[in-house]
Protein backbone atom coordinates (compact mmCIF):
# COMPACT_ATOMS: atom_id res chain seq x y z
CA UNK A 1 0.00 0.00 0.00
CA UNK A 2 1.21 3.40 -0.90
CA UNK A 3 0.15 6.57 0.77
CA UNK A 4 0.52 9.96 -0.79
CA UNK A 5 -0.66 13.42 -0.12
CA UNK A 6 -1.29 16.50 -2.22
CA UNK A 7 -0.60 20.13 -1.83
CA UNK A 8 -3.15 22.82 -2.57
CA UNK A 9 -0.58 25.23 -3.82
CA UNK A 10 0.55 22.81 -6.42
CA UNK A 11 -2.62 23.23 -8.37
CA UNK A 12 -1.75 26.81 -9.09
CA UNK A 13 1.45 25.92 -10.81
CA UNK A 14 -0.36 24.75 -13.87
CA UNK A 15 -0.52 21.41 -15.53
CA UNK A 16 0.94 18.86 -13.24
CA UNK A 17 3.07 16.69 -15.42
CA UNK A 18 3.95 14.40 -12.59
CA UNK A 19 0.66 12.78 -13.52
CA UNK A 20 -0.98 10.17 -11.51
CA UNK A 21 -0.62 10.06 -7.77
CA UNK A 22 -1.59 7.12 -5.78
CA UNK A 23 -2.74 6.26 -2.37
CA UNK A 24 -4.70 3.48 -0.90
CA UNK A 25 -4.91 -0.21 -0.89
CA UNK A 26 -3.70 -2.81 -3.29
CA UNK A 27 -6.29 -4.72 -5.15
CA UNK A 28 -6.96 -7.94 -3.39
CA UNK A 29 -5.94 -9.79 -6.50
CA UNK A 30 -2.35 -8.87 -5.73
CA UNK A 31 -0.44 -7.23 -8.51
CA UNK A 32 -1.90 -4.90 -10.98
CA UNK A 33 -2.47 -1.22 -11.28
CA UNK A 34 -2.65 0.68 -8.08
CA UNK A 35 -6.00 1.95 -7.00
CA UNK A 36 -6.50 5.20 -5.25
CA UNK A 37 -8.94 4.75 -2.44
CA UNK A 38 -8.19 7.48 0.04
CA UNK A 39 -6.65 10.90 -0.13
CA UNK A 40 -5.87 13.57 2.36
CA UNK A 41 -5.84 16.99 0.79
CA UNK A 42 -5.61 20.62 1.74
CA UNK A 43 -1.96 20.78 2.68
CA UNK A 44 -0.93 24.39 2.38
CA UNK A 45 2.65 23.68 1.39
CA UNK A 46 4.79 21.02 -0.18
CA UNK A 47 6.74 20.68 2.99
CA UNK A 48 3.69 20.08 5.12
CA UNK A 49 2.43 17.46 2.68
CA UNK A 50 5.76 15.67 2.40
CA UNK A 51 6.28 15.56 6.09
CA UNK A 52 2.80 14.18 6.63
CA UNK A 53 3.41 11.58 3.99
CA UNK A 54 6.69 10.53 5.53
CA UNK A 55 5.17 10.16 8.96
CA UNK A 56 2.23 8.20 7.57
CA UNK A 57 4.66 5.85 5.90
CA UNK A 58 6.96 5.60 8.90
CA UNK A 59 4.81 5.82 12.01
CA UNK A 60 7.21 3.66 13.99
CA UNK A 61 10.01 6.19 13.42
CA UNK A 62 8.07 9.40 13.55
CA UNK A 63 8.66 11.28 16.78
CA UNK A 64 5.11 12.47 16.88
CA UNK A 65 3.59 9.01 16.57
CA UNK A 66 5.44 7.06 19.22
CA UNK A 67 2.10 6.42 20.91
CA UNK A 68 0.71 4.59 17.91
CA UNK A 69 0.90 0.83 18.27
CA UNK A 70 2.35 -1.28 15.53
CA UNK A 71 0.11 -3.11 13.16
CA UNK A 72 -1.57 -6.01 14.86
CA UNK A 73 -2.09 -9.33 13.16
CA UNK A 74 -5.78 -8.88 12.82
CA UNK A 75 -5.37 -5.50 11.16
CA UNK A 76 -5.30 -5.27 7.43
CA UNK A 77 -2.89 -2.90 5.81
CA UNK A 78 -5.65 -0.44 5.10
CA UNK A 79 -7.00 -0.64 8.63
CA UNK A 80 -3.58 -0.01 10.01
CA UNK A 81 -2.98 3.00 7.78
CA UNK A 82 -6.40 4.32 8.64
CA UNK A 83 -5.57 4.03 12.31
CA UNK A 84 -2.27 5.79 11.84
CA UNK A 85 -4.00 8.54 9.91
CA UNK A 86 -6.63 8.92 12.61
CA UNK A 87 -3.89 9.42 15.16
CA UNK A 88 -1.97 11.84 13.02
CA UNK A 89 -4.87 14.17 12.54
CA UNK A 90 -5.23 14.49 16.28
CA UNK A 91 -1.69 15.55 17.09
CA UNK A 92 0.57 18.43 16.31
CA UNK A 93 1.90 19.45 13.85
CA UNK A 94 -1.06 18.33 11.79
CA UNK A 95 -4.04 18.94 14.02
CA UNK A 96 -4.56 22.54 12.99
CA UNK A 97 -3.96 22.20 9.27
CA UNK A 98 -6.93 22.77 6.95
CA UNK A 99 -7.15 19.21 5.76
CA UNK A 100 -9.88 17.08 4.30
CA UNK A 101 -10.00 13.32 4.38
CA UNK A 102 -11.64 11.91 1.32
CA UNK A 103 -12.58 8.36 0.47
CA UNK A 104 -12.64 7.70 -3.22
CA UNK A 105 -13.88 4.14 -3.22
CA UNK A 106 -17.09 3.34 -1.48
CA UNK A 107 -16.20 -0.26 -0.84
CA UNK A 108 -13.15 0.58 1.23
CA UNK A 109 -14.41 3.45 3.25
CA UNK A 110 -14.17 3.41 6.99
CA UNK A 111 -15.23 5.75 9.74
CA UNK A 112 -13.03 7.11 12.46
CA UNK A 113 -13.05 5.01 15.60
CA UNK A 114 -14.96 6.73 18.42
CA UNK A 115 -11.80 7.26 20.44
CA UNK A 116 -9.88 8.56 17.44
CA UNK A 117 -12.13 11.29 16.19
CA UNK A 118 -10.32 13.98 14.24
CA UNK A 119 -10.38 17.68 15.12
CA UNK A 120 -13.74 19.22 14.44
CA UNK A 121 -12.54 21.28 11.51
CA UNK A 122 -11.29 18.29 9.52
CA UNK A 123 -14.09 16.83 7.47
CA UNK A 124 -14.44 13.24 6.38
CA UNK A 125 -15.98 13.07 3.01
CA UNK A 126 -16.48 10.90 0.03
CA UNK A 127 -16.41 11.30 -3.69
CA UNK A 128 -14.11 12.00 -6.56
CA UNK A 129 -13.19 15.58 -7.29
CA UNK A 130 -11.48 17.59 -9.92
CA UNK A 131 -10.38 21.15 -10.24
CA UNK A 132 -12.88 23.59 -11.61
CA UNK A 133 -11.74 25.80 -14.45
CA UNK A 134 -11.26 29.22 -13.03
CA UNK A 135 -12.77 32.37 -14.47
CA UNK A 136 -10.40 35.29 -14.96
CA UNK A 137 -12.64 37.88 -13.35
CA UNK A 138 -11.07 37.82 -9.94
CA UNK A 139 -7.82 39.45 -10.96
CA UNK A 140 -9.60 42.47 -12.36
CA UNK A 141 -11.66 42.87 -9.27
CA UNK A 142 -8.55 43.33 -7.22
CA UNK A 143 -7.20 46.22 -9.26
CA UNK A 144 -10.46 48.10 -9.28
CA UNK A 145 -11.17 47.62 -5.63
CA UNK A 146 -11.63 50.75 -3.64
CA UNK A 147 -9.65 51.44 -0.56
CA UNK A 148 -11.05 49.36 2.26
CA UNK A 149 -10.88 49.54 6.00
CA UNK A 150 -10.48 46.69 8.43
CA UNK A 151 -13.73 46.02 10.27
CA UNK A 152 -11.83 45.28 13.43
CA UNK A 153 -9.29 48.08 13.73
CA UNK A 154 -10.52 50.62 11.21
CA UNK A 155 -7.19 51.09 9.47
CA UNK A 156 -6.81 50.78 5.71
CA UNK A 157 -6.09 47.33 4.41
CA UNK A 158 -3.40 46.59 1.88
CA UNK A 159 -3.96 43.79 -0.60
CA UNK A 160 -1.35 41.52 0.84
CA UNK A 161 -2.82 41.71 4.33
CA UNK A 162 -6.38 41.48 3.18
CA UNK A 163 -8.86 38.89 4.29
CA UNK A 164 -12.44 38.79 3.18
CA UNK A 165 -15.29 36.46 3.90
CA UNK A 166 -16.32 34.04 1.18
CA UNK A 167 -19.98 33.89 2.12
CA UNK A 168 -22.13 35.45 -0.55
CA UNK A 169 -23.04 39.06 0.17
CA UNK A 170 -20.76 39.28 3.21
CA UNK A 171 -18.72 42.45 2.92
CA UNK A 172 -16.32 41.76 5.74
CA UNK A 173 -12.76 42.87 5.09
CA UNK A 174 -10.01 42.80 7.67
CA UNK A 175 -6.30 42.54 8.25
CA UNK A 176 -4.90 39.03 8.43
CA UNK A 177 -3.51 39.65 11.89
CA UNK A 178 -6.53 41.50 13.23
CA UNK A 179 -8.85 38.66 12.35
CA UNK A 180 -6.41 36.06 13.61
CA UNK A 181 -6.25 37.76 16.98
CA UNK A 182 -10.01 38.04 16.99
CA UNK A 183 -10.42 34.33 16.37
CA UNK A 184 -7.72 33.47 18.88
CA UNK A 185 -9.53 35.16 21.75
CA UNK A 186 -11.28 31.85 22.21
CA UNK A 187 -8.08 29.91 21.69
CA UNK A 188 -5.40 32.12 23.17
CA UNK A 189 -2.54 29.71 23.66
CA UNK A 190 -2.15 29.22 19.93
CA UNK A 191 -0.73 31.35 17.16
CA UNK A 192 -2.56 29.75 14.27
CA UNK A 193 -6.33 30.03 14.35
CA UNK A 194 -8.53 27.18 13.26
CA UNK A 195 -11.96 28.71 13.07
CA UNK A 196 -14.12 31.54 14.24
CA UNK A 197 -17.18 33.66 13.57
CA UNK A 198 -16.96 36.12 10.75
CA UNK A 199 -17.46 39.57 12.25
CA UNK A 200 -19.53 40.50 9.21
CA UNK A 201 -22.01 37.69 8.64
CA UNK A 202 -21.40 35.74 11.87
CA UNK A 203 -21.09 32.46 10.05
CA UNK A 204 -18.61 30.09 11.51
CA UNK A 205 -15.67 29.95 9.10
CA UNK A 206 -12.53 27.92 9.00
CA UNK A 207 -9.27 29.83 8.96
CA UNK A 208 -8.00 27.55 6.20
CA UNK A 209 -10.99 28.46 4.07
CA UNK A 210 -10.32 32.15 4.55
CA UNK A 211 -6.72 31.70 3.46
CA UNK A 212 -7.76 29.68 0.45
CA UNK A 213 -10.23 32.37 -0.45
CA UNK A 214 -7.49 34.94 -0.16
CA UNK A 215 -5.31 32.86 -2.46
CA UNK A 216 -8.10 32.23 -4.89
CA UNK A 217 -8.26 28.50 -4.20
CA UNK A 218 -11.49 28.39 -2.28
CA UNK A 219 -14.27 26.32 -3.73
CA UNK A 220 -12.28 25.21 -6.68
CA UNK A 221 -12.99 21.53 -6.44
CA UNK A 222 -16.07 20.00 -7.87
CA UNK A 223 -17.58 16.62 -7.39
CA UNK A 224 -17.60 14.36 -10.36
CA UNK A 225 -19.41 11.14 -10.88
CA UNK A 226 -17.20 8.23 -9.99
CA UNK A 227 -18.26 6.44 -13.12
CA UNK A 228 -16.85 9.06 -15.46
CA UNK A 229 -15.42 7.73 -18.65
CA UNK A 230 -12.77 8.72 -21.18
CA UNK A 231 -9.78 10.15 -19.40
CA UNK A 232 -9.17 8.94 -15.94
CA UNK A 233 -10.19 11.59 -13.49
CA UNK A 234 -6.86 11.42 -11.72
CA UNK A 235 -5.28 12.90 -14.80
CA UNK A 236 -7.05 16.09 -13.99
CA UNK A 237 -6.51 15.84 -10.30
CA UNK A 238 -4.99 19.03 -9.07
CA UNK A 239 -5.91 19.49 -5.50
Amino acid sequence: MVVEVESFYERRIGQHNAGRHRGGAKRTSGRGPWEMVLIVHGFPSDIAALRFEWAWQHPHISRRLSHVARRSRKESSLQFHWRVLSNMLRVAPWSRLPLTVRWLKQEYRMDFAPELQPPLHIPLTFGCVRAKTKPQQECKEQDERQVERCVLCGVFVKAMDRLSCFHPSCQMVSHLICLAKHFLKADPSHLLPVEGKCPGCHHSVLWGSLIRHKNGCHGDLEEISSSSSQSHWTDELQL
Partner: protein
Amino acid sequence: FFYDMVACRKRNKGPLVPITPMPGFSDMDTPELKNKLNRFGVRPLPKKQMVLKLKEIHQYTHQLQSSESEEETSGPQCHPNASNSQSAPLCFKQPTAPPAVSPVKLPPSEEDELLSASQNSNTSSTAESERYSSYMAIYDDSDSEGITASQAVVRKKDKLLAVRQLILSDPKLYARVLQYQPLSLAELRSSLKAAGIRLGAAKLLDFLDSQCITFSMAKQGQNASSRRKRRVKTTTSGERKAEEKSDRLPCA
Protein backbone atom coordinates in the same frame (compact mmCIF):
# COMPACT_ATOMS: atom_id res chain seq x y z
CA PHE B 1 3.25 21.20 25.17
CA PHE B 2 0.36 20.35 22.97
CA TYR B 3 0.77 16.73 23.05
CA ASP B 4 -1.36 13.84 22.52
CA MET B 5 -4.88 15.10 22.19
CA VAL B 6 -6.04 11.62 23.06
CA ALA B 7 -4.60 12.06 26.52
CA CYS B 8 -6.15 15.46 26.86
CA ARG B 9 -9.62 14.28 26.10
CA LYS B 10 -10.11 12.43 29.31
CA ARG B 11 -13.29 13.43 30.97
CA ASN B 12 -13.12 14.87 34.40
CA LYS B 13 -16.32 15.90 36.00
CA GLY B 14 -14.89 16.77 39.38
CA PRO B 15 -15.40 20.16 40.93
CA LEU B 16 -13.03 22.97 39.97
CA VAL B 17 -10.21 22.89 42.47
CA PRO B 18 -7.03 24.93 42.40
CA ILE B 19 -3.96 22.78 42.32
CA THR B 20 -1.44 24.93 44.16
CA PRO B 21 -2.31 27.60 46.67
CA MET B 22 -1.52 31.13 45.61
CA PRO B 23 1.54 32.75 47.18
CA GLY B 24 0.98 35.83 49.28
CA PHE B 25 1.72 38.40 46.63
CA SER B 26 0.08 41.14 48.66
CA ASP B 27 2.64 40.63 51.40
CA MET B 28 5.70 40.75 49.22
CA ASP B 29 7.87 43.79 48.94
CA THR B 30 8.37 45.62 45.71
CA PRO B 31 11.77 44.19 44.69
CA GLU B 32 10.39 40.71 45.12
CA LEU B 33 7.37 41.48 43.00
CA LYS B 34 9.56 43.01 40.34
CA ASN B 35 11.67 39.90 40.32
CA LYS B 36 8.73 37.59 39.93
CA LEU B 37 7.24 39.63 37.13
CA ASN B 38 10.56 39.78 35.37
CA ARG B 39 10.53 36.01 35.06
CA PHE B 40 7.52 36.41 32.81
CA GLY B 41 9.06 39.22 30.87
CA VAL B 42 6.89 41.90 32.43
CA ARG B 43 8.42 45.24 33.26
CA PRO B 44 8.09 46.76 36.72
CA LEU B 45 4.73 48.31 37.40
CA PRO B 46 3.24 50.20 40.30
CA LYS B 47 3.09 47.86 43.25
CA LYS B 48 -0.66 47.33 43.28
CA GLN B 49 -0.66 46.47 39.62
CA MET B 50 2.20 44.04 40.08
CA VAL B 51 0.26 42.19 42.73
CA LEU B 52 -2.79 42.00 40.47
CA LYS B 53 -0.77 40.82 37.51
CA LEU B 54 0.95 38.13 39.51
CA LYS B 55 -2.37 36.90 40.77
CA GLU B 56 -3.71 36.74 37.25
CA ILE B 57 -0.65 34.89 36.08
CA HIS B 58 -0.88 32.44 38.92
CA GLN B 59 -4.52 31.77 38.21
CA TYR B 60 -3.81 31.16 34.62
CA THR B 61 -0.74 29.02 35.06
CA HIS B 62 -2.30 26.87 37.70
CA GLN B 63 -5.06 25.61 35.52
CA LEU B 64 -8.25 24.23 36.84
CA GLN B 65 -9.51 20.97 35.49
CA SER B 66 -12.73 21.32 33.69
CA SER B 67 -15.07 18.85 32.21
CA GLU B 68 -15.31 18.07 28.57
CA SER B 69 -18.38 19.42 26.98
CA GLU B 70 -17.48 19.42 23.32
CA GLU B 71 -18.00 15.74 22.92
CA GLU B 72 -21.55 16.13 24.05
CA THR B 73 -22.41 19.20 22.11
CA SER B 74 -20.68 18.54 18.87
CA GLY B 75 -21.20 15.87 16.36
CA PRO B 76 -21.04 15.41 12.64
CA GLN B 77 -23.84 16.89 10.67
CA CYS B 78 -24.51 15.75 7.17
CA HIS B 79 -25.36 18.21 4.47
CA PRO B 80 -26.41 16.55 1.27
CA ASN B 81 -24.71 18.47 -1.45
CA ALA B 82 -27.18 19.88 -3.89
CA SER B 83 -24.83 19.62 -6.82
CA ASN B 84 -24.34 15.95 -6.24
CA SER B 85 -26.56 13.65 -8.12
CA GLN B 86 -25.03 10.28 -8.54
CA SER B 87 -22.42 9.88 -5.92
CA ALA B 88 -23.11 9.62 -2.25
CA PRO B 89 -24.11 12.81 -0.49
CA LEU B 90 -21.20 14.84 0.64
CA CYS B 91 -20.98 14.65 4.36
CA PHE B 92 -18.85 17.01 6.31
CA LYS B 93 -18.67 18.24 9.83
CA GLN B 94 -20.06 21.62 10.58
CA PRO B 95 -17.49 23.29 12.74
CA THR B 96 -18.78 24.08 16.18
CA ALA B 97 -16.98 25.36 19.24
CA PRO B 98 -13.26 24.85 19.34
CA PRO B 99 -12.42 21.61 21.10
CA ALA B 100 -12.18 21.95 24.83
CA VAL B 101 -9.15 20.25 26.22
CA SER B 102 -8.63 19.38 29.85
CA PRO B 103 -5.27 20.71 30.91
CA VAL B 104 -2.92 18.19 32.36
CA LYS B 105 -2.83 18.19 36.13
CA LEU B 106 0.09 20.15 37.52
CA PRO B 107 2.55 19.03 40.12
CA PRO B 108 3.13 21.79 42.63
CA SER B 109 5.29 24.66 41.42
CA GLU B 110 5.41 23.27 37.88
CA GLU B 111 4.55 25.88 35.35
CA ASP B 112 5.02 23.96 32.18
CA GLU B 113 1.32 24.13 31.46
CA LEU B 114 1.65 27.80 30.78
CA LEU B 115 1.34 27.05 27.14
CA SER B 116 -1.01 24.13 27.42
CA ALA B 117 -4.52 24.37 26.15
CA SER B 118 -6.68 26.85 27.86
CA GLN B 119 -9.48 26.55 25.42
CA ASN B 120 -12.89 27.10 26.76
CA SER B 121 -15.70 24.68 26.99
CA ASN B 122 -19.14 26.01 26.47
CA THR B 123 -20.20 25.51 30.02
CA SER B 124 -17.52 26.74 32.28
CA SER B 125 -15.04 29.37 31.68
CA THR B 126 -15.75 32.83 30.35
CA ALA B 127 -14.13 33.96 33.57
CA GLU B 128 -11.12 31.85 32.76
CA SER B 129 -10.88 33.20 29.27
CA GLU B 130 -11.03 36.72 30.64
CA ARG B 131 -8.22 35.96 33.02
CA TYR B 132 -6.23 34.39 30.26
CA SER B 133 -6.92 37.25 27.91
CA SER B 134 -5.76 39.78 30.42
CA TYR B 135 -2.73 37.67 31.10
CA MET B 136 -1.86 37.42 27.45
CA ALA B 137 -2.42 41.14 27.20
CA ILE B 138 0.87 41.44 28.97
CA TYR B 139 2.51 40.12 25.88
CA ASP B 140 0.27 41.60 23.26
CA ASP B 141 -0.17 45.02 24.74
CA SER B 142 1.32 47.32 22.19
CA ASP B 143 1.01 50.32 24.47
CA SER B 144 3.54 49.10 26.96
CA GLU B 145 7.13 49.87 26.19
CA GLY B 146 10.18 48.05 27.25
CA ILE B 147 8.89 44.52 27.12
CA THR B 148 11.20 42.92 24.73
CA ALA B 149 11.47 39.28 23.90
CA SER B 150 14.90 39.30 25.44
CA GLN B 151 13.49 40.14 28.84
CA ALA B 152 11.79 36.78 29.16
CA VAL B 153 15.04 34.98 29.50
CA VAL B 154 16.24 32.17 31.63
CA ARG B 155 13.64 29.53 32.14
CA LYS B 156 12.52 27.38 29.26
CA LYS B 157 8.88 28.30 29.48
CA ASP B 158 9.83 31.92 29.49
CA LYS B 159 11.94 31.30 26.42
CA LEU B 160 9.04 29.73 24.64
CA LEU B 161 6.89 32.69 25.52
CA ALA B 162 9.64 34.85 24.13
CA VAL B 163 9.60 32.94 20.86
CA ARG B 164 5.88 33.36 20.73
CA GLN B 165 6.26 37.04 21.38
CA LEU B 166 8.92 37.30 18.70
CA ILE B 167 6.56 35.87 16.14
CA LEU B 168 3.67 38.03 17.25
CA SER B 169 5.72 41.19 17.20
CA ASP B 170 6.98 40.66 13.66
CA PRO B 171 4.03 41.22 11.31
CA LYS B 172 5.77 39.76 8.28
CA LEU B 173 6.71 36.64 10.16
CA TYR B 174 3.32 36.26 11.75
CA ALA B 175 1.64 36.79 8.39
CA ARG B 176 3.60 33.84 7.05
CA VAL B 177 2.47 31.69 9.94
CA LEU B 178 -1.13 32.71 9.41
CA GLN B 179 -1.00 31.79 5.74
CA TYR B 180 0.53 28.43 6.58
CA GLN B 181 3.75 29.36 4.83
CA PRO B 182 6.85 27.61 6.08
CA LEU B 183 9.22 29.60 8.24
CA SER B 184 12.89 29.43 7.50
CA LEU B 185 14.47 27.75 10.46
CA ALA B 186 17.82 29.41 9.82
CA GLU B 187 16.29 32.87 9.79
CA LEU B 188 14.19 32.19 12.82
CA ARG B 189 17.18 31.01 14.77
CA SER B 190 19.20 34.07 13.88
CA SER B 191 16.30 36.31 14.92
CA LEU B 192 16.17 34.52 18.22
CA LYS B 193 19.87 34.90 18.67
CA ALA B 194 19.63 38.60 17.90
CA ALA B 195 16.90 38.92 20.50
CA GLY B 196 19.07 37.20 23.07
CA ILE B 197 16.86 34.15 23.32
CA ARG B 198 18.91 31.04 23.75
CA LEU B 199 16.85 28.06 22.78
CA GLY B 200 18.10 24.75 21.51
CA ALA B 201 17.07 23.56 18.08
CA ALA B 202 15.13 20.58 19.37
CA LYS B 203 13.08 22.68 21.75
CA LEU B 204 12.42 25.24 19.07
CA LEU B 205 11.17 22.54 16.74
CA ASP B 206 9.00 21.14 19.50
CA PHE B 207 7.50 24.55 19.96
CA LEU B 208 6.89 25.07 16.25
CA ASP B 209 5.35 21.62 16.01
CA SER B 210 3.12 22.30 18.98
CA GLN B 211 1.87 25.40 17.23
CA CYS B 212 1.47 23.51 13.95
CA ILE B 213 3.87 25.92 12.29
CA THR B 214 5.63 24.49 9.28
CA PHE B 215 9.32 25.14 9.01
CA SER B 216 11.78 24.83 6.21
CA MET B 217 15.45 24.10 6.19
CA ALA B 218 15.86 26.40 3.22
CA LYS B 219 16.51 30.11 3.45
CA GLN B 220 13.41 32.29 3.30
CA GLY B 221 12.16 32.73 -0.21
CA GLN B 222 14.00 29.74 -1.53
CA ASN B 223 11.74 27.03 -2.71
CA ALA B 224 12.50 24.07 -0.53
CA SER B 225 11.11 21.64 -3.04
CA SER B 226 13.73 22.70 -5.53
CA ARG B 227 16.21 21.05 -3.23
CA ARG B 228 14.42 17.76 -3.40
CA LYS B 229 14.27 15.28 -6.17
CA ARG B 230 11.10 15.02 -8.10
CA ARG B 231 8.91 12.85 -6.04
CA VAL B 232 6.92 10.89 -8.57
CA LYS B 233 8.37 8.96 -11.43
CA THR B 234 7.01 6.64 -14.07
CA THR B 235 8.21 3.17 -14.84
CA THR B 236 7.85 1.67 -18.26
CA SER B 237 5.11 -0.69 -17.27
CA GLY B 238 2.91 2.24 -16.47
CA GLU B 239 3.17 1.74 -12.79
CA ARG B 240 4.08 4.80 -10.92
CA LYS B 241 6.21 4.94 -7.88
CA ALA B 242 6.54 7.63 -5.36
CA GLU B 243 9.86 8.55 -3.94
CA GLU B 244 10.10 10.33 -0.73
CA LYS B 245 13.27 12.17 0.02
CA SER B 246 12.77 12.61 3.64
CA ASP B 247 16.26 12.32 4.96
CA ARG B 248 16.63 16.08 4.99
CA LEU B 249 13.85 16.45 7.43
CA PRO B 250 15.07 16.38 10.99
CA CYS B 251 11.96 14.73 12.29
CA ALA B 252 8.46 13.98 11.27
